[in-house]
């Protein structure tokens, strides 16, 4: 099977810090791939290079076999890659609806939309409400409430709902449950499995080992800016994974295929 998303020799330097050190990456169709690694290992930089938020200094990326070069997050998005960034990337003063549709606003049909460029607020609101409902986030009272008036977890929920609603090829989640309560985390895990059942592969970055081992098909262990190994969660324990990722234990010799 061909990977849907493949990267080879990605390098990204920030001054003297090497965030990506000729890093390889493979994501196969329909799978949930977890990416684990210490703080500062370069996980966020890796997924930013994939989504277009960061331009790698060198290295190549292929999406569905074709080489891609993204110059902005918008490029990645147009290619069907939707990302929840660790920082969430929301405009605090704008409403939930505004944020969900940022950069892909719906315009009214006919003259109002095509000539007067008028936004279809109603359509966007009902869509946003529906997506948040699916995620069980209806403790949110008002879809037009500013994002800054939401709790940290609610914000994260909105960001996840946004990615799940629009991702068509790949969905990337950078620590999507970090701020979430027990129940909300469960909903996000369910949502992840739901998205996979729609055939869309997911990259999940998380420090939560039980979550990772519960949903992941494969685990990409990231260490010092590169892929150390890929393991099958059925073959290893959580302690093994943590030992690989912290360098306490040598990685398995053979890189695991799909």
């Amino acid at each position, binding site marked *: 099977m061909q990977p849907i998303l493949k990267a080879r020799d990605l390098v990204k330097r920030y001054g003297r810090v090497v965030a990506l050190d000729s890093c390889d990456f493979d994501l196969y169709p329909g799978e949930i791939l977890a990416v684990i690694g210490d703080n500062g290992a370069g996980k966020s930089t890796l997924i930013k290079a994939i989504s277009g*938020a960061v331009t790698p200094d060198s290295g190549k990326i292929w999406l569905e076999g074709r080489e891609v070069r993204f110059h*902005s*997050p*918008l490029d990645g*998005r147009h290619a069907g890659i939707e*990302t929840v*960034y660790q*920082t*969430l*990337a*929301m*405009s*605090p*003063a*704008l409403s939930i609806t*505004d*944020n969900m549709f*940022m*950069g*892909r*606003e719906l*315009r009214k049909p006919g003259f109002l939309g095509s000539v*007067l*460029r*008028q*936004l279809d607020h109603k359509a966007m609101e009902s869509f946003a409400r529906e997506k948040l409902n699916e995620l*069980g986030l*209806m*403790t949110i*009272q008002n879809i037009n409430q*500013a994002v*800054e*008036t939401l709790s940290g977890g609610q914000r994260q929920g909105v960001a996840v709902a946004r990615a799940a609603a629009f991702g068509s090829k790949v969905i990337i989640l950078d620590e999507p449950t970090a701020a979430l*309560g*027990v*129940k909300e985390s*469960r909903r996000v895990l369910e949502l992840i499995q739901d998205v996979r059942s729609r055939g869309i592969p997911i990259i999940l970055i998380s420090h939560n080992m*039980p979550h990772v*081992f*519960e949903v992941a098909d494969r685990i990409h262990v990231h260490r010092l800016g590169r892929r150390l190994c890929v393991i099958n969660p059925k073959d290893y324990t959580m302690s093994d994974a943590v030992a690989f990722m912290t360098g306490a234990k040598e990685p398995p010799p053979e890189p695991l295929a799909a």
Partner: protein
Amino acid sequence: MSETQDYEKAAASSPSSVAVFAAHDQGAVKRIQHALHQTPWMVPAIVLAASILVFGLLLGEKFFSPFALTLILQQVQIVGILGAAQSLVILTAGIDLSVGAIMVLSSVVMGLFSFRYGLPTELAVAAGIACGTFCGFINGFLVAVMRLPPFIVTLGMWQIVLATNFLYSANETIRAQEIAEQAPLLQFFGNKIAIGGAIFTYGAIFMVLLVLFLAYVLRQTAWGRHVYAVGDDPEAAELSGVQVKRTLISVYMLSGLICAFAGWALIGRIGSVSPTSGQLGNIESITAVVIGGISLFGGRGSIMGMLFGALIVGVFSLGLRLLGADAQWTYLLIGVLIIAAVTVDQWIRKVSV
């Protein structure tokens, strides 16, 4: 794993009722804070209504007449138009110190193209508008692409444009009478419509229509939402699919374009083309924006508020003058209003905490 399942089971059996916060009663102060968060132009609107009322009670007919009230509109038209340009820039968390200078240079270009080069007035006006837009483009390019701070960029442009204006015009004024005879189109915005005692200049009408138009664009179009998003958090905006550079450049260009229209309206207002006019345009427009409740930190406020802010200044100026007070009282009170407005802005921001 079994441990994991256990604690989650406990959570699953919790009640799943929705909107538990809804019943919880907020205090009146909190409710006001929330209302202002939603409609930031409310404060200036209330201050404007109150000041009209107070001066109306103190001065009676003298102030509360169609003539006096429309006179205020005429007196604030230039600041109002510049304020519209300033609002756009400040919404992106920038500031434009060059608005007044761009206005004057554009009006000088319109004048000189008509009189020095003898071009048709329509062409001269178009050249002036192109000049203003180009100045805005330079600002936008330096801010968006070179990533220089807007304050510094427009501080520099202010000096550059003003000096260019004096050098180019040789500091010569084109007299009103000449313009009226040979290029009346330049004084277009000075035309008036009289309804009873009320006198509406085209410039004042243009100011109101411009603000209404921009209010529509900012609220109802994607570009408008992007302007707010860029001002709010440019990195988040970029990550969520806004073309930040393009949006910033378009904002500064539109600002320059509006300044050029202000230059055209300025000719209508003072009759002549004068390179020394409009020097306080930048400070006055920033004042209108701040009193109007637009946040200097970007991303918050509405352009209607700016119009109310400009009118508040106009009401105070005229009202105090009619009362026979020293003009310094106007400046003193406006200073107080500025500080009060920023205080309110800070308070509204705390709504999230």
